[in-house]
């Protein structure tokens, strides 16, 4: 067993163990909560980078048989380029939001409950990414999802509870669609191991039953990824959660549970049937347009960001749905970039709320002098999401637009350009209303946020600035290109 296969289960075990330790110990010794949360997320982030160093290139997968039972009988945990890509993205954001939460969550009672749920959610997300077994994927998906319902309701105020209930009902329906799809595929192929299932489905790409399962997966994972028309829960749920959780949910949760799982199943298991790809393209373009149109009119800072998440996920799905080499790289690159700048924006919104107590853009104004770090990092993130060179968002959008032109899908390319312009307009509004202009009397005594919150925001902003470098072959080859490699046609190769 190779080194990267040995550490694969730890991505689930560490956060899961830390979550239980938090419940056992930190409820008595409150100071342990921060320590456990930070240590666990730091360890998983470190391991993700270490695994990057071990260089599991391309579609060659390192397999860890759980409990020593070899696949296809036992559950396998698989580490390949795409898994590694998601693990690094998820765990960077998880560590930085945990760092931010140390100061931010002081305002809430029962910090240990927050960390316990946070770590459970992280364990679920990492589990979805590393598992090579379809039913196991469902179980991890539900672990992450149930933890996220509780986290959305964490403030237990009227709106938070309402949003959490709506989110929980819709997301449960999505999970049921996934479970039904898994049942159908299992009865068709008699296996649950993804690689084995892909082998069994070879030559049956267009058959009715796998297509039915594919539609159920698009519905289920589409609900988790908040693609239009399955998006109604996101603009309520993401703003209702505490800021670090909004950052996790919008930054990585909808991607690991939604986009990653969708790609894995549609591309690797079902062998990318043409009709499903056209559905993905259409849903991606629709999400882009609807999300940005709804975002432009919003005045609640976090709600505006939530609508932009729908729109940006549209870009990711559009890029991946093109299924050309350039489109895949562009889509995955945008996935990484969006994780970074959207979690940064939610942390910024949390910082503004922490300092001023409001999320309404109309009541802000002139905060630039009082909150220099927050306003500076917001400016960086806004320019990234709007696609201004040289920030990371520009390069990935450019790649997606080029890929659409190259595939002769001109309509989609025009959509992507128009949405980019509207995004820019929307974020000019944010920066103008929140940070520019004269400082009103009531914000004269506003103080900048504590150091750990600043540190988290600054690190994310630095990644936004230098993120474009991933396109250089020397930097991005083991990370970005080898992830895109996995989604190309053909079967997996076991290491």
């Amino acid at each position, binding site marked *: 067993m190779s080194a990267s296969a040995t550490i694969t289960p730890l991505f689930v075990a560490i956060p899961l163990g830390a979550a239980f330790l938090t419940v056992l110990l930190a409820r008595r010794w409150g100071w342990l909560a921060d320590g456990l949360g930070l240590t666990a997320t730091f360890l998983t982030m470190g391991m993700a980078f270490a695994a990057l160093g071990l260089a599991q290139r391309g579609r060659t997968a390192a397999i860890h048989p759980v409990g020593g039972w070899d696949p296809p009988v036992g559950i396998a945990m698989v580490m390949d380029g795409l898994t590694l890509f998601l693990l690094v993205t998820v765990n960077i954001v998880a560590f930085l939001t945990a760092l931010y939460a140390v100061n931010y969550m002081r305002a809430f009672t029962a910090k240990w409950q927050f960390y316990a749920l946070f770590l459970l959610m992280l364990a679920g997300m990492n589990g979805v990414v590393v598992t090579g077994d379809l*039913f196991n994927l*469902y*179980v991890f998906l*539900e672990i992450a999802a*149930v933890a996220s*319902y*509780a986290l959305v*309701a964490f403030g*237990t*105020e*009227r*709106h938070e*509870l*309402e*949003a*959490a*209930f*709506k989110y*929980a*009902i819709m997301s*449960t*329906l999505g*999970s*049921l669609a996934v*479970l*039904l799809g898994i*049942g159908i595929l*299992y*009865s068709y192929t008699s296996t*649950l191991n993804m690689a084995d299932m892909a082998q069994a489905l070879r030559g049956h790409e267009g058959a009715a039953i796998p297509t039915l399962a594919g539609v159920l997966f698009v519905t289920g994972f589409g609900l988790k990824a908040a693609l239009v028309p399955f998006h*109604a829960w996101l*603009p*309520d749920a993401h703003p209702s959660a505490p800021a670090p959780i909004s950052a996790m949910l919008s930054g990585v949760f909808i991607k690991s549970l939604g986009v990653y799982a969708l790609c894995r199943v549609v591309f690797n298991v079902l062998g990318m049937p043409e009709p499903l790809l056209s559905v993905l393209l259409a849903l991606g373009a629709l999400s882009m347009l609807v999300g940005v149109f709804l975002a432009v009119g919003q005045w609640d800072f976090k709600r505006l960001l939530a609508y932009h998440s729908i729109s940006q996920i549209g870009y990711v799905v559009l890029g991946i749905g093109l299924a050309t080499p350039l489109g895949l790289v562009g889509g995955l690159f945008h996935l990484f970039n969006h994780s970074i700048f959207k979690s940064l924006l939610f942390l910024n919104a949390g910082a503004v709320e922490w300092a001023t107590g409001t999320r309404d853009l109309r009541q802000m104004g002139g905060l630039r002098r009082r909150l220099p770090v927050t306003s500076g990092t917001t400016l960086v993130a806004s320019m990234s999401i709007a696609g201004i060179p040289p920030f990371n968002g520009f390069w990935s959008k450019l790649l997606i637009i080029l890929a659409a032109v190259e595939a002769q899908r001109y309509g989609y390319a025009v959509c992507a350009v128009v949405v980019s312009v509207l995004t820019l307009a929307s974020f000019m509004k944010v920066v103008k209303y929140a940070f520019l202009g004269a400082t009103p009397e009531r914000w004269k005594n506003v103080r900048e946020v504590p150091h750990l919150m600043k540190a988290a925001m600054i690190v994310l902003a630095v990644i936004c600035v230098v993120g474009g470098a991933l396109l250089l072959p020397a930097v991005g080859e083991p990370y970005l290109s080898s992830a895109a490699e996995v989604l190309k046609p053909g079967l997996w190769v076991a290491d």
Partner: protein
Amino acid sequence: MGAYVMCFVLLAIGIYAILAHRNLIKIIIGVLIAQCAIHLFLVLIAFRRDGEAPLHAAEDSPALMVDPLPHAMVLTAIVVGLATTVLLAALAIRIYDKYGTYDIDKIRELRG
């Protein structure tokens, strides 16, 4: 075949209950019905006519063995469903505390 049809009818009833009812508790019951329908579907795909548990069936006749794997899946799915249902019920209780009603038309404060 009839059993499969009934299973999907049950699923449709569950989804109808979620969509049509305005009471939080009835919506939760709808989710439960839909969950049961899926669990039933998983049990059905394991079923073999005249089959037996693999432990009792003759060794050379896999066609007469009931597939045990979906049963394990259903057990897991029931546990997952329990967690979801308990959380939904807890949320419903907290909502009742705040709003004094289970009617979602009266709870609607967030715009879509």
